[in-house]
């Protein structure tokens, strides 16, 4: 089973990298891109029997290590092996 963990900076936190990326896009001519926030994406290959178990394990991993709760929040998507194979 695969867990996709999306870790992003909390809205209140200033993101200097995201700002730099936005400025770079503007120089390339994409004035319509108003703002950019940069985050992290993790793919966890988990040995779990149910999607709920995989989600629980991924959430623990995120709480303890993948995200810093002071400045980051996260969300999780579970992809079953069958779904992953179908893509």
């Amino acid at each position: 089973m695969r867990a996709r963990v999306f870790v992003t900076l909390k809205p209140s936190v200033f993101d200097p990298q995201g700002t730099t990326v936005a400025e770079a896009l503007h120089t390339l001519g994409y004035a319509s891109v108003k703002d950019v926030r940069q985050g992290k994406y993790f793919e966890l290959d988990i040995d779990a029997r149910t999607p709920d178990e995989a989600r629980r394990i991924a959430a623990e991993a995120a709480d303890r290590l993948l995200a810093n709760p002071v400045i980051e929040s996260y969300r999780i998507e579970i992809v079953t092996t069958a779904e992953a194979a179908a893509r």
Partner: protein
Amino acid sequence: MKFAVVVFPGSNCDHDAYHAVKHVLGQDAAFIWHKETSLAGADAVILPGGFAHGDYLRTGAIARFSPIMQEVRRFAEAGGPVLGICNGFQVLLEAGLLPGAMLRNRSVKFQCVHVFVRVEQTDTPFTVACRRGQVLRIPIAHGEGNYYAEPDVVERLERNRQVIFRYTTPEGVVTPDANPNGSVANVAGLCSEARNVVGLMPHPERACELALGSADGLVVLESAVRSVTQGALAAVASAKAAAAR
């Protein structure tokens, strides 16, 4: 007194901290590998600068789980003096021994340059030999020194006098231009509620000899010596007083 310098895989400034306390200050010092479970009777602990675990994931995020950190936590909870320098400060934040977190510098670039910091409080083991308002010229060298804490946390830190060092002009004035990385409230270093754990982004161990450009950092390490020996003397004195009663 004896300093323990913790070494994580990827720590770089361990030798610099060791050199400063042993060869410049003439104290006893030992390297403690991150897998050890004992601080070997140290009187003070230094978590040095560098790139522990390559700064992978987040700076200090993996180092906080090292076996030695349990010992460091116990030592800190018992009131022992702990100094986190640069990457060491980041490890203390990730370990929750200090509040807040580090972000990338506002300029998104690593900066190695001398800055000025003002000593805000002198009642910590690492500032007891300083004067309130004293301005120190110390180098920084970091890409992620932009200290962040939520507004209510910042308010609490100020109220509790937990901000220990602030970036200022050479004259000691807090200005945006004097802030090299965007830290909230120009915070360069802070202490725990119990005041025995201190973290700072600048490198005092790089400013202990004039030949290297500044000796202003020496007073931070000298404070630890004074604090520990005075603490020992105080303990002896109160034991004597108790025995005399």
